[in-house]
């Protein structure tokens, strides 16, 4: 007569396998980190004008988008398509441990991303923030990461086909980059009332709110009522995306 293994043992076994998988897929993980690094290098010139927090927060936001949408969503869709989850689900483990293990890999990726952005920013762009700014930046990165992981979960909940998930996440990633580049830098004010609407959408889009909380976390003295709204919106996005993602998610793609 077999008994149920301890959740800790099961989770450790899953995490070991998932971290090994991530290590073997390190090329795609490096790509997710490379985008923010390229942004840091290419924005070297504007760092002095916009400030360190602006550049670092944008770079981390791009990285979080890549991790949540491309790292998380695409691997979940692929493994679901291959039946990896179905095989695990016939084991005596609670199903939440399967996802918890996957998410822990992405949280480690967020930690590495934030660290790399700080290091490259310091060494290449010669920008730095206060120690408390660095620390709060990590916290903000995890909160922001939850938005994109939730969004990734929602996409794999809505779309069953792995190829469609792949193309959709890339499209959304591109869309967020556009929001990031044009929403933050382009002068929408020149476009009249339409510009104002675009600016507002950009500011309160998932990208805009995450970037703002990251930026203010790095410069806590700049906290304002607008930041509070951004933080609430970020938490709201994370909760809504994750709830819908979990509700719609099916373990089997067929």
């Amino acid at each position, binding site marked *: 007569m077999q008994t*149920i293994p301890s959740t800790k043992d099961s989770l450790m076994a899953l995490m070991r*396998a998932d971290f090994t998988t991530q290590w073997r897929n390190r090329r795609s993980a490096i790509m997710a980190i490379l985008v923010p690094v390229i942004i840091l290098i290419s924005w070297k010139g504007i760092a002095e004008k916009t400030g360190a927090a602006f550049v670092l927060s944008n770079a981390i936001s791009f990285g979080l988008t890549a991790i949540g949408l491309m790292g998380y969503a695409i691997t979940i869709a692929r493994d679901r398509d291959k039946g990896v989850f*179905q095989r695990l689900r*016939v084991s*005596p483990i609670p199903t939440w441990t399967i996802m918890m293990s996957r998410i822990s890999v992405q949280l480690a990726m967020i930690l590495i991303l934030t660290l790399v952005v700080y290091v490259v920013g310091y060494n290449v762009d010669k920008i730095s923030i206060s120690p408390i700014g660095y620390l709060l930046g990590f916290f903000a990165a995890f909160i922001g990461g939850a938005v994109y992981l939730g969004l990734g979960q929602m996409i794999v909940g809505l779309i069953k086909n792995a190829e469609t998930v792949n193309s959709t996440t890339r499209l959304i990633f591109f869309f967020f980059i556009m929001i990031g580049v044009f929403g933050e830098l382009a002068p929408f004010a020149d476009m009249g009332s339409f510009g104002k609407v675009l600016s507002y959408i950009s500011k309160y889009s998932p990208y805009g709110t995450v970037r703002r909380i990251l930026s203010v976390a790095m410069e806590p003295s700049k906290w304002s009522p607008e930041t509070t709204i951004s933080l609430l919106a970020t938490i709201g996005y994370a909760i809504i995306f994750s709830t819908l993602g979990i509700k719609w998610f099916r373990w089997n793609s067929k």
Partner: protein
Amino acid sequence: MLWVEILNRISSNAYSKHMNNQLNGSILSVEGLNVFYGNFQAVKNVSFSVKGGEIFGLLGPNGAGKTSTLSAVEGLLKPASGKITVAGHEVSKDPLLARANMGVQLQSTNFQPELHVEEIIRLYAGVHGLKLEKERIRQILAEIKLEDAAAKKFGQLSGGQQQRVSLVIALLHEPQMVLLDEPTTGLDPQSRRQLWERMEALREKGHGILLTTHSMEEAEAVCDRIAIIDHGRVIEVDTPNALIDKHRNDEAVIKASRKGKITLEDVFIGLTGTEIRE
């Protein structure tokens, strides 16, 4: 301590008796199972049981309800009604305990493609609460003549080798009930025979095996009892020979016979019809 051992034996014997009474000799029991997909009823009031030391075959054309029945047993889908018990644990009430007592080989091989065989074995040992050292994993692989496969990715193995690894993973925790979903599909005759021998060895050890297959030759060769399922209903349950004897004079079976001698396949065609199912 002697008294601890005596107490353990008494309690273990009492427990075994209790379990035997509870299970009535069967390791898997399915009673009045009904499965729906929306308005479509895939499984209709299916009941059967599998005893320890028995290979029980579930046969049926495509879409007959075999995989739905198996999925309900595995806990992968929630039946509308019915009671499924594995080793005394009801799947709907104690899903984890029920799964801890079953070993499953799904229809398609489904492991993370990046992992090496050794890592896959360690993962599935871990999710069953077992800690296997590298040496033990090598030993397990040597037992299935795959000692060189430890550092290979699962996708690099041949179909037969993949099946051997899948089966060994399903049996890592020595489950009482083994569920095999079309395990010999796509295998060459040598690999198929080898798998049959493994199934028979499991039967000798007292494991109960539930096997779904499209191969009548396989069902006839290894199954002790067979359930023929069609349009979601079990239409016959018996030993292969008894089924042949019972239906050898049926008009449809005689019509299905190709070489004069009535085979299990003739009985199957006679009972389920000749039209192709999608």
